[in-house]
């Protein structure tokens, strides 16, 4: 169905603000009437894609699932051939990445629920990861996707561990920002599993340990299952090669952790991506919700294989605008979204992986330090030095946010 021909979209211009109207805020630079038109354009895209879902999307996800299972079986089998160890690890890593990203994350978003296939249903899918899918769906699909980049509400801003935004108050604890980030990367699946326990809120006295009992049980059940197969059964099945297989399985999990962490951090933390205050987003209209998703996310440019391995989270913007559309449609939607952004004069954050990673790393280091000397309790003598460092870091070339032609 092509209800909306491309020519039509290009002809249209963004509506001018109505007399006397003000943009919502500096961060959300459209007026209410513009937001309405903007939201309708986004809805139109969504509706068109939904109407065209069918065999091609089903074939695609079936192919990806088949490839993932094949990589997994190949990886497990290759551990019986010691010289093929690196290959085995590579195959298993690819399997875990596909399982978690292009399949698990997207299936759990309900992108394939329309197919009615129990194996691809958001209600039933369980991924190859220590975080139970039930809990992931709560913290990710609900909390993160609803309250995206609202400081104080979206717990994915720094995962309760890191300082990733100027609006998070500085504390000497955050001097360890780069170290915590590194540890979170290495242990990412565990970090994700612990995410729901809201440990930071327990420390702050805002949450009781007893509230976590049910979550704990769920996590422990899943951890046991994951550990049993990766760290006991499969290694044991390779007999004398036990230690090698164990190390291989651990490495595959590590590779997946590092990859997933980096892709995900490039989705919301490169420079220029906006965060929002709770007040700014009160009584938010649907158009404003779209705008917040757009300005609070960033894409990564790359080829087809790269997009597949990121689970199409390289199209983080499109994913946040349309979290329940099959991810393979994001590239086709991206062109339209960019065109709409140009008409409305909105930023569309994108860049190659290297650039985005550098930008994220700079941010992690930058927010390790206080913004003003006065933020540092009892360190007035060092204030000058800290200020110098701060100024130095913030003078780092900020990453351009020009839409990338690729």
């Amino acid at each position: 169905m092509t209800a909306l021909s491309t020519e039509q979209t290009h002809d249209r211009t963004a509506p001018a603000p109505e007399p006397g109207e003000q943009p919502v805020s500096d961060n959300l630079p459209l007026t209410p009437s513009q937001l309405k038109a903007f939201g309708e354009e986004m809805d139109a895209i969504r509706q068109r894609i939904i109407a065209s879902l069918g065999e091609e999307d089903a074939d695609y996800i079936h192919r990806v699932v088949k490839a993932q299972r094949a990589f997994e079986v190949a990886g497990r089998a290759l551990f019986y051939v010691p010289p093929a160890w690196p290959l085995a690890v590579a195959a298993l890593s690819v399997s875990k990445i596909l399982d978690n990203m292009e399949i698990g994350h997207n299936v759990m978003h309900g992108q394939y629920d329309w197919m009615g296939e129990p194996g691809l249903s958001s209600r039933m899918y369980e991924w190859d990861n220590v975080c139970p899918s039930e809990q992931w769906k709560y913290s990710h699909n609900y909390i993160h996707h609803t309250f995206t980049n609202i400081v104080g509400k979206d717990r994915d801003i720094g995962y309760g561990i890191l300082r990733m935004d100027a609006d998070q108050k500085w504390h000497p604890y955050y001097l360890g920002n780069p170290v915590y980030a590194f540890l979170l990367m290495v242990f990412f699946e565990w970090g994700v599993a612990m995410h729901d326990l809201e440990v930071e809120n327990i420390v702050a006295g805002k949450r009781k340990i007893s509230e976590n009992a049910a979550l704990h049980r769920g996590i422990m059940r899943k951890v046991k299952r994951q550990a049993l197969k990766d760290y006991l059964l499969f290694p044991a099945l390779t007999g004398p090669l036990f230690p090698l297989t164990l190390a291989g399985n651990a490495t595959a999990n590590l590779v997946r952790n590092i990859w997933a962490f980096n892709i995900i951090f490039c989705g919301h933390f490169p420079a220029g991506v906006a965060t929002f205050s709770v007040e700014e987003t009160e009584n938010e209209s649907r158009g404003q919700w779209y705008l917040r998703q757009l300005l609070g996310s960033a894409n990564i440019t790359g080829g087809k294989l790269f997009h597949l391995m990121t689970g199409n989270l390289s199209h983080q913007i499109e994913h946040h605008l349309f979290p329940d559309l099959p991810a393979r449609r994001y590239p086709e939607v991206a062109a339209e979204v960019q065109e709409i952004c140009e008409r409305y004069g909105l930023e569309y954050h994108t860049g190659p992986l290297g650039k985005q990673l550098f930008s994220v790393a700079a941010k992690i280091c930058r927010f390790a330090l206080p913004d003003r000397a006065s933020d540092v309790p009892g360190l007035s003598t060092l204030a000058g030095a800290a200020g110098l460092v701060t100024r130095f870091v913030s003078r780092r070339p900020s990453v351009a946010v020009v839409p990338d032609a690729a």
Partner: protein
Amino acid sequence: MGLATTILQSRAVAALASPHGVDRYLELVNPMWAATEVRARVVDVHRETTGEHPVATITLQPTSTWRGHRAGQYVQVGVEVPGARRTTRCFTISSAASAPGERFTLTVRAHSEGLVSKFLVERAEPGLVVHLSQAQGDFTLVESPATPTNNHLLFITGGSGITPAMSMVRTLLRDGYDGHVGRRVTFLHYARGPEDQVFADELASWADADNGVRVVLRHESAGDPRFSAIDLARLVPDFREVDTWVCGPAGLMELVELAYDGSPRLRTERFKPPVVKAGSAEGDVVFSRAGTQAANSGAPLLEQAEAAGLTPEFGCRMGICFSCTARKSEGTVRNVLTGEESSLPDEEIRICVSAPVGDCVVDL
């Protein structure tokens, strides 16, 4: 159960295949391999009648996981209808009771509204793989071929309702249960006309054989009498004292129930649970698990469920998190964000953004 199945169903293999499960791997190698799920391959399609609502008998070879069925039971059949949407419907098994892993048949009438029945009758071909449940239902024959009694058995069926009775009589005859020691079977069937009569040849051969089975066919187009207690009493004078199985359209079922006047000998099977229509203009919403029904207010189902005192799960309440997903078994819903309407049966919907249009049944 073979050794392979025992191994595949073991806890050790389940632990290795965690979290996806053994079947998610086996199905990729061969759709007929399964450890717990049941699937079947269509091995034969036989057209019984043509015309506006044609009937076909479909022979299925199930996977080894099929536990068999008792005569009179039904099975859920899921097929991928065009557009890659798996749709599931129940069908009564028409062949005699099956043992585990054994072939069985479904006799299906293509309804104009029935996505699955139309698909099976019009498009199923040998080789097609369908998804099954295990056999279900309590509308079964209690008479055991192993310890036969000489009770008189009476079957009253109408239209497609003939299938469970076929399965029962076929089982009796196959297992050597006949009338030589004074047992009798009366098979009374109502059809629109001879052209709509399924299993005509087999019924004729039952009638001719010396087996104690009496077949009475009533064809509306030939002016045969419709069901009445008087007509039935002419065939089976003490019918209220005879074990009776009845299955057919709602109108027939009501008349039979009236005639039996609460007799415990009557066993009934309906194709669809009766949906009570209270007649409100916007239709009614039925929350099938809670067993409540309310007039449709036009609001999203989540709000209507809450108003009815239910507490369904939810998160964002704006259609993005899928926390509130529930199965809509019947009816049309409109997506309040996009205005799209959808009438697919057995569809997963987000109740926070789905408002019913007319009558609607949700599994809540």
